[in-house]
């Protein structure tokens, strides 16, 4: 019997640039209000808060501290923070619920990528001695991975472009998504210039300012607060080596391991929907293979990261969208995936089900 469920989700509009500050409060206050309205809860009902964000998006130390203003943390609250995507904050929150120390937990993630030069700053995720001093940007790193697969005939540029077309068309029905269009054509896209051969602009997620929030509850409370809770039946994450040249970049073994452990493709019971956190088109193809997803699975109906990639919230938003599919009755079993680090180094899988 599952012990906790997702009962609410909201995401801020995915925008190329907001007027707000890097501490996220302007993006968070409205979406906290949304999930409280969805559930009838107030801030005093939340037993544990956990956030995900990064100082390097803001350009100053302790930037997440000001975000706590959005909580209204007085009387004092039980609260924690990871310097990772909010999906990992949700994981920490779920563990807290499993210990029995909280019945209802709220995880949030936020990032104002437009404040800095995201492509540049992500170079600092790489080995500080032998790689980062060369300042390889994040798109170039992804492009290396893309070509490796193209050369080995693991995927084609056409397949990559089809991911882009499908994602942006799906995003049309997501009011909070960013570049949405159902008029893109594969041939047109393939004829556009490269941004980092072999990647075209359509292969890359946009720069996005955004935030997301997910509320989970322990069993009895979940049934009280939500008509159709999305029960968490698997929640796992793994990490691969930090050395780019020492691992096979065409695969994501940590995603495979996380997916297996989470029961994503349990014998005879795959998922109906998989929301994949793939900021590059070829990475969606890698993840589909890594997670063993058959063609019958609907991939990222929200549009995925290609339709909005708010750093440190995008993974949490994938879980939120997956849960929404279950909560709305559109799916009976769904998977939300999050990634961290260059070229799919770390991967998290959350499986949610109806009952």
């Amino acid at each position, binding site marked *: 019997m599952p*012990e*906790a469920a997702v009962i609410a989700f909201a995401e801020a509009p995915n925008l190329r640039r907001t007027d707000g500050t890097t501490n996220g409060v302007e993006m968070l206050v409205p979406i906290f209000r949304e999930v409280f309205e969805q559930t009838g809860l107030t801030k005093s009902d939340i037993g544990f*808060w956990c956030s995900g964000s*990064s*100082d*390097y998006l803001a*350009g*100053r*130390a*302790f930037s*997440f*501290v000001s975000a*706590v*203003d959005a909580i209204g*943390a*007085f*009387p*004092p*609250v*039980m*609260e*924690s*923070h*990871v*310097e*990772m995507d909010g999906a*990992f904050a949700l*994981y*920490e929150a779920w*563990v*807290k*619920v*499993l*210990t*029995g*120390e909280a019945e209802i937990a709220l995880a949030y993630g936020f990032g104002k990528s437009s404040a800095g030069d995201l492509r540049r*700053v*992500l170079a*600092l*995720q790489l*080995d*500080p*001695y032998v790689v*980062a001093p060369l300042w390889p940007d994040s798109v170039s790193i992804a492009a290396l991975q893309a070509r490796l697969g193209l050369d080995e005939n693991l995927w084609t540029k056409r397949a990559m472009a089809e991911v882009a077309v499908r994602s942006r068309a799906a995003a049309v029905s997501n009011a909070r998504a960013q570049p949405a269009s159902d008029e893109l054509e594969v041939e047109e896209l393939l004829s556009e210039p490269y941004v980092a051969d072999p990647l075209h602009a359509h292969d890359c997620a946009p720069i996005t300012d955004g935030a997301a929030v997910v509320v989970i509850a*322990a*069993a009895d409370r979940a049934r009280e607060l939500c008509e159709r809770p999305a029960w968490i039946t698997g929640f796992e*994450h*793994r*990490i*691969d*080596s*930090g050395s780019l040249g020492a691992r096979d970049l065409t695969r994501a*073994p*940590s995603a495979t*391991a996380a997916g297996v452990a989470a029961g994503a493709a349990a014998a005879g019971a795959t998922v109906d929907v998989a929301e994949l956190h793939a900021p590059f088109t070829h990475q969606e193809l890698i993840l589909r293979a890594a997670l063993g997803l058959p063609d019958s699975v609907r991939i990222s109906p929200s549009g995925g990261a290609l339709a909005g990639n708010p750093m440190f919230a995008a993974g949490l938003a994938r879980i939120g969208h997956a849960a929404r599919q279950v909560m709305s009755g559109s799916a009976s079993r769904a998977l939300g995936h999050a990634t*961290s*680090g*260059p070229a799919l*180094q*770390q991967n998290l899988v959350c499986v949610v089900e109806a009952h």
Partner: protein
Amino acid sequence: MASADKQRAAVLGTGQTHHRSKRPDVSIAGLCREAVDRALADAGLELADIDAVVVGKAPDLFEGVMMPELYLADALGAVGKPLLRVHTAGSVGGATGVVATSLVQAGRHRRVLAVAFEKQSESNAMWALSIMPPFSMPLLAGAGGYFAPHVRAYIRRSGAPTHVGALVAVKDRRNGALNPYAHLRQPDITLESVQASPMLWDPVRYDETCPSSDGACAVVIGDQAAAEASSRPVAWIRATSMRTEPTMFAGKDHVNPRAGADAGKALWAAAGIASPIDEIDVAEIYVPFSWFEPMWLENLGFAEEGKGWQLTEAGETAIGGRIPVNPSGGVLCSNPIGASGLLRFAESAMQVMGTAGEHQVAGAKTALGHAYGGGSQYFSMWVVADTPD
């Protein structure tokens, strides 16, 4: 889910580095492994025995590495395993211990490695802490200048004699001399020498402030089966607690923050402790500026409000006193910011495991580990004991 389902957890081993102002002999990975290898040896385990890793450290800007757990995955033996990185400002070391404990208590893993570190000499703490965004009021002073006015307010509120802060400095630095890993080890420090040291932010003197250190700490936490299978002493984790309040808000009590007091009360209740001063044998408390010892003794309920200084003045917080505080020398001796909180947790465990060597409090059975961070904002703490209940 009922709390009764919570699994028992215990510290199987601890390890730390030799803390110094600079560790030029190691890389960031090497610094972490020094602590990790010692913790594994203390636990009688290897990296292959670890199921998950939790890393904690303070702002990435200190080392100029974004999300260093990514680079450290190999060094920490985390490849193929779950790895989390927590960051709750100065309390992060404590949060690391709490999160690692929760993973075991929730039944997720059998053995979790908690690692916290700071290699401050990659940059320097003053620079990283003084980056002010545009439009801010200019910073007037370093970290001590933020806390010194609240120390003044405590002295005013409690009527404490003004030498109490210096007494803490003398005790902690002499304790540090008993701790082979401590950064500052000053066996000959005296009340007079502390009071003669330069006044930095009146009323806080140079010798009453924490150093800036490179260092790391690691703790292996296991479930009941792992603890029972160990041939070495373990420290059972009776309870943990965490509380947060905003750094600044109208009506905030900076001297006796509500979040710290709430965290303490929740901790004692969960651990079944009715009178901390009677039932806790030793406390490792996060004291970065001397006066925080009496302030936190009150905040945590070891003394009534306004009377914490009396315990210090009477010598009751020395090893051999009624409530030894920071026998390791505490943050006043070693302050790798990201690790300082976990060091408090580790040192409390060492006390009940009987492995604290020269700074062992004789017969310690129940100990407190405490950390705080931000502007007296984040508080995390645990109680460990030599028996599970």
